[in-house]
């Protein structure tokens, strides 16, 4: 192995891959076969964290950053003047195995610029995964990017070796896509998604009948949307996200605050602040949709097309719907408990267990980990000291903001001062 050459390539191709935020290595439970190498654990492990606090669990690289397309938001686009490099299939295999054996990573996340044609590119990605599984007996995690426009046959093969497949939709609206990625058609994205979804459905049905049916993309598929590049509203983003969750059984949708990488009049200028708070609010919303039983229309609608920045989406919903409150924590069912601001899903289950033994009061709830500074306005418990004052939404919000110290508080106050 020519170490210096590999080093150069790795620097270029890791750098180009880092804007893809999905790092998840969870959701697959591949066990170790025949005393081979590795397994994929259900929870996924973060082996380290980047300087901005994101989980590093996979070796995330591009096979190559040569690309025949010119998508405006992408560093790899052909008109961009950057150093280019390409890994050989075997080089990626060696890197993955050696990193894995040293317990640096959970597996590989391989994406690529499109060289020659979508199929030509997809074929190489599949070749890496196949080699890892069949020659190295590797049972760790493999995430492959589905190249937009790749054929059904290749997508089928990809799923046989990979744990997860993803196509980044990147631009949440069709009009935005036309503007920013003129070479790509909306179907180029959805066709591979459709194929993968159908295969997953087919394989799971067959597995129910024949136990030994091999796995097909056991961790499912995911996609990513860029936030803040094409003037879309939070409603646009979350409605598309819900559409992808439903239509293609997506496991995850990722939201990535746009990092300006280019001078282009269609996009925010280089140096514009990455909309991290907004990204965070979108993830919170996504969470509420997937785990808390909210429907997207409750959180975002025509009267309310964008998320509040100063309070989280659940609190924001509660403030708009005070008629549902207060909820009695000693009798309410879990769906209602989950809607109280300051009570997370973990607390919901702890409350349900603990209240079998006694009626819960403020002290109990505090020990359980409920954020009372928020929750107190929306609930009653076994205590006469509950918040009885009849306050309106603005008042409650004010009281809560006074006592909270969220991680974006500073950022928010500087943002606020901009508008004063």
């Amino acid at each position, binding site marked *: 192995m020519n170490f210096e050459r590999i*080093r150069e390539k790795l620097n270029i191709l890791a750098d180009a891959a880092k804007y893809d935020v999905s790092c998840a290595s969870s959701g697959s439970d591949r066990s*170790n076969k025949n005393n081979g*190498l590795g397994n994929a654990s259900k929870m996924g492990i973060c082996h380290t964290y980047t*300087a901005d606090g994101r989980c*590093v669990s996979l070796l995330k690289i591009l096979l190559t950053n040569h690309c025949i397309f010119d998508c405006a938001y992408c560093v790899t686009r052909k008109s961009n003047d950057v150093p280019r490099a390409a890994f050989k299939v075997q080089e990626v295999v060696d*890197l993955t195995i050696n990193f894995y054996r*040293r317990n*640096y990573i959970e597996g590989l996340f391989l994406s690529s610029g499109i060289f020659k044609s979508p199929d030509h590119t997809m074929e190489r990605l599949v070749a890496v995964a196949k080699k890892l599984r069949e020659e190295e007996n590797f049972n760790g995690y493999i995430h492959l990017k589905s190249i937009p426009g790749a054929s059904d046959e290749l997508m089928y093969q990809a799923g046989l070796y990979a744990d997860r497949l993803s196509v980044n939709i990147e631009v949440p609206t069709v009009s935005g896509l036309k503007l920013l990625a003129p070479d790509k058609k909306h179907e180029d994205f959805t066709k591979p998604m459709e194929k993968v979804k159908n295969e997953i459905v087919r394989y799971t049905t067959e597995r129910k009948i024949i136990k030994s049916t091999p796995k097909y993309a056991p961790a499912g598929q995911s996609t990513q949307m860029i936030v803040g590049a094409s003037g879309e509203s939070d409603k646009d983003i979350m409605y598309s996200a819900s559409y992808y969750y439903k239509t293609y059984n997506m496991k995850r949708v990722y939201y990535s605050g746009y990092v300006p990488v280019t001078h282009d009049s269609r996009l925010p200028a280089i140096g514009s602040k990455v909309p991290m708070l907004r990204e965070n609010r979108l993830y919170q919303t996504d969470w509420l949709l997937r785990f808390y039983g909210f429907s997207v229309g409750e959180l975002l609608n025509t009267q309310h097309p964008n998320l509040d920045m100063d309070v989280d989406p659940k609190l924001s919903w509660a403030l708009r719907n005070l008629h549902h409150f207060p909820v009695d924590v000693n009798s309410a069912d879990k769906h209602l408990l989950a809607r109280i601001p300051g009570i997370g899903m973990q607390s919901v289950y702890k409350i349900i267990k603990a209240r079998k033994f006694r009626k819960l009061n403020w*002290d109990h709830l505090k*020990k359980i980990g409920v954020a009372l500074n928020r929750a107190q306005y929306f609930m009653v418990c076994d205590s006469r000291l509950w918040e009885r004052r009849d306050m309106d939404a603005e008042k409650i919000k004010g009281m809560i903001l006074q006592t909270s110290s969220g991680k974006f508080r500073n950022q928010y106050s500087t943002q606020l001062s901009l508008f004063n």
Partner: protein
Amino acid sequence: MNASTTLVYDGSFNGFLTAVFVAFDEKINVADIQKNNQSQNGLFSETETVFTNVEKAKRVWNGIRNKSHNAISNVYFAFLSEAEGVEMMLYNYIQKLMRTKNGKYLDYSDSTVLHIAQLAKKVGREKHRMEAFVRFQLTKDEIYFANIEPDFDVLPLISKHFRDRYADQKWLIYDVRRKYGIYYDLDHVEMVSLNLKDIHHNKTVKSDAFTNEEYEYQTLWNDYFKSTNIASRINPKLHKQHVPKRYWKYLSEKKVTA
């Protein structure tokens, strides 16, 4: 009144469980349960030395497990915290557990239960951290070797994870603080103690115990770690919260390179 007795055991988990067995069996009024190398004579209590007995320990283990799976893992994890006085707390916990009828002892508003659960959680967190932060280095005799220095005695807890994952390579994980390690020889995992001259953390000076290739891969990993950073999103506080500083010296990506 029954005079109170301090039970002294050998420091092992089985030893502790045996002490619990003896206490229940002989209806001892327990003043304290102490490790033999830390035992202190209380002024007003008798001391009784407990000899570890795997059969007795097993009966206690099964007794707790039959009440609740969650409880047995809480007991084991909390024990490994090596927290001062944890034995008595566990003894109280087990007493409370045994008094419950249906075994589902999950009253988190009870302070002993809560405390044990919190200790167990801390140990559990470190178990996960160690599964993540172990960094193997390949020695010339083809053993993947790692030093760790965890706050709690987590080696027994992480053994299975590494056995399941690295089934086709020899590996050795050594706890520098507690001076023992676990070694997998392609067949099974065993406890070992070594006379380590050097503690191999991520220093830049190369040791000739390791292959040349080893250092090349460390450099590549280092590079990779650096290039994952997106400068416009930097957040050192969050970073340290995830990767506490006390672990840094064993992480090769934290090596200061030229």
